[in-house]
């Protein structure tokens, strides 16, 4: 209470500081007058009385002391000195614009990079899900184990989901989501959109209900119920102009009418899971037919759940684990299946997390190098002020006072650097977003907000501590007496040289660390690009045509459509080959179980897995997949003829142990047709360069009874620019059927690039940061070298006068730096070996201790550092021996 009153009084006094100063002077004058009067009254002459009055007060110094003490008490004395220090620091910084610009620019570079990366992390990693209490949402998945790859995460079987809902207590609500492509027709151009089929718990899980209309009710889930749909805000605004009257009306999805019963509020998007980039535009009730609900092998839905209040994630995970163990005992068909559970937000960011963490670390290192550079500049600067500071000590300034003034200067520098860094950072962040691969989630949410500001300010404060404490420490160990002595000059010079040498070693080590990281990324890219895809993506343009099952009910109807489309497309200019298939490589694909004849033992254990695609005869020629043995699929492989298949070389190796597959037979199930293998083709990496070679089976698209996977893609091999075909193919589709959306029209090379975009992005950023750190470190090396030369000018002059030639001097001077650089490089190398393990997930085909990356980084660092010190040392040999010795 009293403390507040004092503070208030002080603030009031500070505000009217002028009169207060005069007031206390007057008061002391009055005191002296009164005392003098007293002495005069006792008969002492006036001049003597005055002297005695002053003596009682301790003389002039006593008066000054009292005035000072009163002033200290009065007003905001602390703030006064801070302002004074700030003004003083500002004056000093203005007096040396070169130093100030160099320091502020260095800091701005480091802090700006931090702003950009913090914004990225803030938008991608820390962004909360757009639902109430987002931390209560979890996702549940199932995993199957096989000896080759270990546990693999797969979707949940609806049959299991029903049990999860009924037999758990940890969850307030649980939602099953099946992702579907939907053709929206009727308004504007036909469009392919994502429409999720959702179970009854969906809206309770989100914790948000439609703001117009209603949620789905139990009746909507009855088989044969009216088809209903709920739209998300984005689609509603974009396609229907935000018309509230849409509720109650019907829209056409996949050629069927659906009644709109609700619109979700603004800012609420549909659930997305791990690898899904886009939220759905709409949701419909999921009605599972009886055969799906009885088959625990049919994994097709994603599951999210909202935890009951007070239930921790771990408890829910334990409950799911014990439930799936119980279910494995009950249902032999599910015996390989286990469940996993993770917070939904964390799970979505799981893929990008290692990259973002590595980026934050990298950008932190860059900032550290920047701080070390500024520290090095400040050490020289504060040393130059040594005499001045010593004089201030001698005049009675306290050490704390001088250190505070030096720290103030560092803080002013940090604030200037922060300001410039924010400006630079906003620009850098926009650049980053422009360069970022579209696969990074929530790119649109990347912006500079309060959190980024706080984080950057914290980084600036830490930086300030790093570069500000060294000069302050230097002062703290200064003994005023020594500082004034002439001989001190050499002592302090060696102190400066030692601390700057240490700083430059640190810079080199930090740069080495970043260079190693960048080197490992580059090596990963090289390794990746060196890998053979097994097909030629460059001249191939593909497109997806999602034929709605309502109109193209039978496989034969779809086949007829694609055969007609292929004939039309083949006559387009520039088309060399044309093919259609269920899926082309890099665009997804299906995996299926099959039984190799002859089957022995229990049938459930005889099933093996391979990639299965239905393809037209032109598939192999279009993609450039070579024939190894037997024959390719032919036009005559149609319904009614012998069911045939072509397999990949990996199929012979993995499934048949290297035996010749031609003539071998298999089926897709006990009662399915027996298929004969007639040819072997080259291996492909279906999912791109980073994926393994898997066994592949190709079935003739025209033998429609063999495989139910829907034909949905067409591709051409062209000798022209892909762009022209990208518009010509949809035109041919619409010439046959006007209501068909054509999506994902692009060359396979482009798709490949997109798949690699994240890797290129991370490599680019690491190279950029390593380059920044290296540049800053080289500036440091140059500066220290120049300093050593200027300090040793006499010695160098002496050596030259004694007949040392230029080469010798250069070797001697550069040699001093070589020790520092070597020490820095080695410590960086050691730290790299220790820390690089943490970026293992970002690497491909190289180990974190890959020698080539380390050698390349070290060579580059040492070479450029020696070049920088050579440039600085060249000044050494220009020293005139005569003037240097004088």
């Amino acid at each position: 209470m009293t403390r507040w009153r004092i503070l208030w009084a002080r603030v009031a006094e500070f505000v009217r500081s002028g009169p207060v100063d005069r007031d206390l002077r007057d008061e002391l004058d009055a005191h002296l007058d009164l005392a003098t009067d007293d002495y005069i009254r006792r008969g002492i002459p006036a001049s003597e009385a005055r002297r005695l009055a002053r003596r009682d007060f301790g003389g002039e110094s006593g008066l000054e002391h009292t005035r000072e003490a009163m002033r200290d008490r009065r007003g905001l004395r602390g703030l006064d000195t801070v302002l004074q220090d700030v003004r003083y620091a500002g004056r000093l910084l203005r007096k040396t614009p070169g130093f100030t610009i160099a320091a502020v620019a260095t800091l701005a570079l480091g802090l700006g990079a931090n702003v950009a990366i913090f914004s990225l992390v803030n938008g991608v990693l820390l962004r909360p899900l757009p639902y109430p209490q987002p931390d209560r949402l979890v996702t549940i998945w199932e995993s199957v184990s096989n000896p080759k790859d270990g546990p693999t995460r797969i979707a949940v079987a609806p049959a299991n989901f029903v049990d999860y809902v009924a037999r758990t207590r940890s969850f307030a609500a649980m939602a099953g989501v099946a992702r579907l492509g939907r053709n929206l027709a009727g308004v504007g151009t036909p469009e392919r959109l994502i429409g999720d089929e959702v179970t009854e718990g969906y809206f309770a899980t989100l914790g948000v209900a439609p703001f117009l209309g209603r949620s789905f009710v139990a009746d909507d889930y009855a088989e044969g119920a009216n088809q209903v749909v709920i739209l998300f805000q984005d689609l509603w605004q974009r396609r229907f102009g935000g018309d509230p009257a849409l509720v109650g009306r019907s829209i056409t999805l996949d050629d069927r009418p659906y009644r709109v019963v609700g619109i979700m509020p603004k800012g609420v998007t549909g659930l997305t899971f791990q690898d899904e980039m886009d939220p759905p535009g709409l949701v419909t009730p999921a009605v599972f037919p009886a055969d799906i609900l009885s088959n625990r092998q049919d994994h097709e839905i994603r599951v999210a759940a909202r935890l009951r209040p007070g239930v921790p994630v771990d408890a829910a995970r334990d409950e799911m684990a014990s439930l799936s163990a119980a279910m494995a005992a009950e249902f032999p068909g599910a015996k390989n299946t286990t469940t996993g559970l993770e917070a939904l937000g964390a799970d979505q960011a799981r893929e990008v997390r290692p990259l973002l963490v590595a980026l934050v670390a990298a950008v932190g290192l860059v900032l550290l190098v920047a701080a070390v550079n500024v520290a090095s500049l400040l050490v020289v600067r504060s040393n130059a002020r040594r005499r001045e500071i010593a004089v201030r000590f001698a005049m009675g300034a306290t050490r704390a006072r001088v250190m505070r003034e030096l720290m103030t200067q560092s803080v002013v520098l940090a604030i200037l650097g922060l300001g410039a860094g924010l400006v630079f950072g906003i620009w850098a962040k926009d650049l980053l977003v422009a360069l970022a691969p579209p696969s990074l989630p929530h790119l649109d949410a990347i912006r500079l907000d309060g959190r980024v500001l706080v984080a950057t300010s914290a980084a600036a404060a830490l930086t300030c501590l790093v570069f500000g404490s060294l000069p302050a420490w230097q002062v703290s160990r200064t003994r005023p007496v020594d500082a004034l002595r002439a001989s001190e000059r050499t002592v302090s010079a060696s102190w400066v040289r030692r601390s700057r040498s240490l700083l430059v070693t640190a810079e080199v080590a930090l740069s080495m660390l970043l260079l190693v990281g960048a080197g490992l990324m580059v090596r990963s890219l090289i390794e990746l690009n060196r890998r053979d895809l097994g097909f030629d993506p460059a001249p191939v343009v593909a497109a997806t045509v999602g034929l709605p099952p309502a109109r193209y009910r039978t496989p034969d109807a779809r086949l007829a459509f694609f055969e007609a489309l292929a004939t039309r497309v083949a006559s387009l200019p520039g088309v060399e080959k044309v093919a259609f298939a269920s899926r082309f490589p890099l665009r997804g694909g299906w995996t299926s179980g099959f039984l190799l004849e002859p089957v022995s033992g229990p049938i459930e254990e005889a099933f093996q897995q391979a990639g299965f695609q239905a393809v037209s005869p032109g598939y192999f020629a279009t993609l450039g997949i070579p024939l190894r043995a037997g024959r390719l699929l032919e036009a005559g492989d149609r319904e009614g003829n012998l069911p045939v298949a072509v397999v990949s070389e990996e199929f012979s190796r993995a499934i048949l142990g290297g035996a010749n597959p031609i003539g071998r037979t298999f089926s897709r199930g006990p009662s399915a047709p027996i298929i004969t293998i007639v040819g072997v083709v080259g291996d492909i990496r279906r999912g791109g360069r980073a994926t393994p070679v898997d066994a592949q089976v190709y079935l003739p698209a025209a033998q429609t009874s063999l495989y139910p996977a829907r034909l949905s893609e067409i591709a051409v091999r062209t000798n022209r620019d892909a762009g022209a075909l990208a518009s010509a193919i949809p035109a041919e589709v619409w010439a046959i059927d006007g209501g068909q959306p054509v999506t994902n029209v692009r060359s396979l090379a482009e798709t490949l690039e997109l798949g690699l975009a994240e890797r290129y992005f991370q490599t680019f950023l690491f190279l950029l940061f390593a380059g920044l750190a290296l540049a800053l470190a080289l500036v440091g090396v140059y500066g220290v070298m120049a300093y050593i030369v200027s300090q040793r000018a006499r010695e160098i002059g002496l050596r030259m006068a004694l007949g040392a030639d230029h080469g010798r001097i250069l070797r001697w001077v550069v040699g001093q730096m070589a020790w520092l650089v070597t020490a820095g490089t080695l410590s960086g190398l050691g730290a790299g070996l220790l820390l690089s393990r943490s970026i293992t997930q970002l690497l491909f085909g190289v180990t974190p201790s890959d020698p080539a990356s380390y050698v390349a980084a070290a060579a580059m660092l040492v070479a450029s550092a020696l070049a920088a010190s050579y440039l600085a040392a060249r000044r050494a040999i220009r020293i005139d021996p005569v003037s240097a010795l004088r």
Partner: protein
Amino acid sequence: MLDTNRMTDLDKTDVLQGTLALMILTTLDAMGPMHGYGLARRIEQMSDHAIALNQGTLYPALVRLEQQGWIRGKWGTSDNNRRAKFYGLTSLGRRQLESEATRWLRIAGIVERFLGPVRGRS
């Protein structure tokens, strides 16, 4: 060196500060509003000149007391027609004096009980 000296200086003043404040408050309570010089003289007299008050220490103490709201200073004219700042006790200061005085007497009583046997021995 310098720093250590300062430190002990401060310690002395700090010890004095508490008692000085009490003396100022008591004097003002007994005598009514007084100026700084008068207070200094009065305290010297009262203590039988046992306290050769460094008059300089009085003024910072007055600033402090005024900030605490226990006394209030006002410019006025002295007996011999000099302009001076007169300090008077506020009602808050009067309450404070009571509690401080009680506390002080209690402490003094306790200390005296401790000192009693020591005196007896000598």
